[in-house]
């Protein structure tokens, strides 16, 4: 009977999967948006029976006027807002880097906003499960002078905690901050967390974990620190994964075990000094301490916590590198990451990027070869994931086909 139910739940997943992963057909979210063919940096959260997908709509560089858009997708994969929802209309500047979480009966969308034309602020707005924007004027989470940017958000079920990086006074180095935002839309005072740069945050039922990624080219590392519900840090960030260059990572909760952190290793280089490429997993326990290796010198073989491995540089070579996403899928974590095909004279150019998935138990991949999620001739990048709590997930990503055209698309994923 249980198998029959699972079959019914995932019947709409048209594309057959491998192992225990089923991947559905690609869903375009907004076919003719105002962004003139430019959609980017998606994120997704699940709440009250539907997903809310958010993304940047339009050009955000010089001359641009990008806005944050959103659309709901039902748990069975129907786009409920085919015309999209403009989250915070305004006249000037650009909005970018949206992130979303669900708690207290509402979605909270956060983003960085360059509407003053000088530097970014962190703003937010609530969206109801019915798709209505609840804040006509955005909530100013961090609007102090100088750059306040790269927000991320999570919920403890009642309210939200927003983390970001910002500059203070005349200092040259960024600091990490957190501020609570209530489900009613009231932002609390900012607290310094030490988690910077590019902080991310997730709630495990008792604490938030803030994770940040170093900018170090040779010695970048991913670090984490426990935060209370008000954002107060329990200490200083400690290393979770070392041996990475330009740390880029994802974070999700693993019930009863803590959190899962996924990050790449080194990029391909002509001399091979950085060693092999890898997409790696690490578990941070409920006490905020890593339960898996932090440092890897120059391994020549795939290590147990490597979800993917950059193969020898040559024809057909692939290399895992860049953003990833993870979410708890009921029995295991599901991780989606970027796998590039290599080309060029030295086999160090990224020629085409696909998205690959694996179920992960602890730090061990249950699908060592990886399961393709999006693997067309176009580049599929920047995945984000959310789970519906019953084994169904929605993976959203950028799909770019050259000449600056980029769309946000989604696929349902079922995990058996």
């Amino acid at each position, binding site marked *: 009977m249980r198998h029959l139910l699972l079959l019914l739940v995932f019947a709409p997943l048209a594309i057959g999967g491998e192992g225990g992963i089923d991947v559905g057909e690609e869903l375009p979210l907004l076919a003719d948006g105002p962004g003139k063919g430019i959609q980017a940096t998606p994120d997704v959260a699940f709440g009250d029976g539907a997903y809310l997908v958010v993304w940047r709509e339009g050009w955000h560089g010089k001359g641009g006027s990008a806005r944050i858009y959103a659309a709901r997708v039902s748990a069975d994969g129907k786009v409920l807002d085919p015309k999209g929802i403009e989250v915070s209309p305004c006249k000037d500047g650009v909005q970018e880097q949206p992130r979303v979480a669900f708690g207290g009966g509402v979605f909270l969308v956060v983003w960085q906003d360059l509407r003053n034309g*000088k530097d970014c602020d962190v703003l937010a707005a609530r969206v109801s499960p019915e798709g209505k924007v609840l804040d006509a004027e955005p909530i100013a989470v961090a609007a102090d002078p100088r750059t306040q940017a790269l927000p991320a958000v999570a919920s403890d079920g009642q309210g939200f905690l927003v983390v970001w990086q910002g500059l203070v006074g005349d200092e040259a180095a960024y600091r990490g901050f957190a501020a609570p935002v209530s489900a009613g839309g009231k932002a609390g005072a900012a607290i310094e967390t030490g988690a910077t740069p590019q902080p991310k945050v997730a709630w495990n039922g008792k604490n938030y974990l803030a994770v940040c990624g170093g900018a170090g080219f040779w010695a970048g590392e991913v670090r984490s620190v426990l935060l209370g519900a008000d954002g107060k840090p329990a200490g200083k960030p400690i290393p979770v994964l070392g041996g990475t260059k330009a740390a880029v990572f994802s974070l999700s909760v693993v019930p009863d075990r803590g959190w899962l952190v996924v990050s790449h290793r080194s990029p391909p280089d002509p001399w091979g000094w950085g060693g092999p490429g890898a997409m790696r997993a690490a578990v941070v326990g409920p006490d905020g301490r890593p339960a898996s290796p932090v440092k890897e010198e120059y391994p020549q073989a795939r290590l147990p916590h490597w979800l993917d491995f950059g193969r020898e540089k040559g024809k057909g070579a692939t290399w895992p590198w860049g953003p990833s996403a993870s979410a708890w899928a009921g029995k295991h974590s599901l991780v989606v990451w970027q796998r590039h095909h290599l080309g060029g004279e030295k086999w160090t150019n990224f020629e085409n990027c696909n998205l690959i998935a694996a179920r992960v138990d602890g730090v061990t991949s249950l699908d060592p070869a990886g399961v393709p999620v999006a693997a067309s001739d176009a580049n599929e990048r920047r995945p984000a994931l959310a789970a519906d709590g019953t084994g169904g997930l929605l993976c959203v990503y950028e799909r770019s086909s050259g000449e600056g055209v980029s769309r946000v698309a989604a696929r349902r994923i079922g995990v058996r």
Partner: protein
Amino acid sequence: MSRMALLLLGALWLHAARAGEGEDMPKIIPDPSASDWVVDRFAGNSTAGPELLQGPAREVGGLGRCGACPMPDGSVVIPFAGGLAEVDPAGTLRVLLEDGDMLQGTTAQVCAHAGVAYSPKDKQLYLAGRNCLRRLVVSPDAPARAEVVAGTPGKPGFDDGPLAAATFTRIDSLVINSRGTMFILDHNERIRRIEDGQVTTLNAKVRSGKRTDGPLAAATFALIGLGGNLCGGDDDDTLYLSDHWNFCVRRIDLRKGEVTTVAGMPKPPGVKPDAQTPQQKRFNANCDGPALTWASFNSGCAYVCWDPVHRALWCGGPDENRFRWLKDGELRTVIGAKPDQHKWPKDAIGVPTEKVYLSWNAVVATDAKGGVYLSCSGEPNGLWRAYNAKEVKP
């Protein structure tokens, strides 16, 4: 060390160097102007992380190792691994082109600094694309485009001929003179010229690994891997080439069609290290001094950049942690004379040059005001602008 002491020491070293070229020639010989130079962070902030930000140029992350192309309107175009950005005269950085796929692929360690050049003749910006040359087409309210003007993306080769029929393999350097003639260092092997719609290859002997001066068609270079670049010189008919694995700088006189070596002591014969003379031991040790006899580069000569204001050639190897120029037949240190990598104020402005420590570095551009743009792929990455405080204002 105070600036005055540094200046005095530099003068003493210079005196010793010129007097006898003796065995006690110091490794570092500060240029007499070294104490007058200061360095500002220009763009990028390594504490911001790898994600690209926009806003005040000194507050943005995500540039990593990058290049610079000063424009006539006072803005600076910055090629980086993810695309192209612009810093306007007010110091605000905005993205011009984000799709890095259209540009020559760069790994995190390799500098894209030589792949962008402005043509004063047609007032266009040209970019190194994959197997092709592109031109930037700017739109007022949309991302810029990079349209192909020569070669074919995805079709590597070295075929000469009309622009559309010619093929390129990997454009490592792009130089455009005031007449609009373009010179391309292609895959670190061939020097190619684009003039009157035709692509021609100027040198014939490739992959010889030797250091042969003389007629350009027969000259040989040792450009390996991804080191080495081409830059313009003091007139439209002069090019300089960092001949990476010959550990030297070559000057190309296009009018005469001749190549000469202008910096970098010869590689010593294969004698054991303990049998080498003090002069021979200076090879591959980034030493200053008389350019052709006592001066050397470290791990090869990785970059050259002509400075029209100071009439000097900035040049260096990848592992030198300081910036030197070739002037009046000598190689001298101008920036980073007394490095202390743990103490230098990484993100400040007005940093005295003796405190600057930038590893895996290069001079990537100079501007008409005497500014010199520095980039490095170590920490902290991003772009700096050095200038002589006695000559120009920031």
